[in-house]
């Protein structure tokens, strides 16, 4: 399931339980800092076997936004 893959990319990097990964999770909270951001990007790219555009790396400011961005890469949620 794509949503589970995305959710575990976030939870593994941030060291959080899956139930903490909601649409409201956003950059700057729960340990999601600039270093974690690069790790989340790497984890997402690894899980879905894609390479994100730099603009999308910059725009990915919440879990909800991550889903929106990945939709552009043909990943459905």
């Amino acid at each position: 399931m794509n949503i589970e893959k995305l959710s575990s990319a976030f939870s593994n990097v941030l060291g959080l339980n899956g139930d903490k990964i909601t649409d409201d999770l956003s950059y700057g909270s729960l340990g999601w800092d600039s270093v974690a951001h690069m790790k989340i990007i790497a984890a997402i790219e690894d899980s879905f076997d894609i390479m994100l555009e730099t603009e999308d790396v910059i725009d990915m400011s919440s879990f909800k936004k991550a889903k929106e961005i990945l939709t552009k890469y043909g990943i459905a949620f």
Partner: protein
Amino acid sequence: MESLFNLNGKIAFVTGAARGIGWQTALMLASNGAKVIINDLADSENLQTKIKDAKEQNIDLTTLFFDVSDYVQVKNAYSSIFKEFKRLDILVNNAGIMEDSMISTASEAHIEKTFKINTFGAIYNTQYASRLMARNNSGSIINISSIIGTKGNAGESVYSASKSALIGLTLSTAKELAPLGIRVNAIAPGFIDTDLVSHFSEEIRQKTISNIKLGRIGTPEDVAKAVLFFASDLSAYITGQVLGVDGGMII
């Protein structure tokens, strides 16, 4: 004991590698086990001959031609590295040009071209390479600066500035990328026997050599050995450094 120079299983990318320091670096990394992708602006018969000769020595090089100063081309290049190899372990930002000019007569075109290739190119490549490296929580980036960038030289202020900028890039990215397991170092070659200095007159050449304590011009291999050091685990605890490879040159 396994050699600390061993790069088996590593994927390396060298920009501006058709000749000179870049070419020798590619050979050096490949002969120590890395799978090496070489970049330059365009293919040539001469390069294909060299690649064929290398192959006969069991050195296998892959090519990826694009302009490092073009952001879109860099982006597409890393997409193709990702598609084909899935990872990147070593980046050598080597592509560069050197055009002499006094500050009073440096044209806008010269200034822009020099910075686009020497500086922007390295920044663009670092941006994309570090993202591929971050996936494995490891990597080594080596920026080829210049003694002109660390010490300056009359008649080369624009080149000097473009190469000094690589030191700033090295120092900052070393700090920023360390938490992702990526090391960044720079090499500042002195007077090295490449096409970049082939236009020097014999008189200038001898005068320059007289300022080198080891008494000879450097070879591209001399620089490539330093790149191998930074690319390998021998330098596992070294980041944010600028290493002069200049034979004790005074400038």
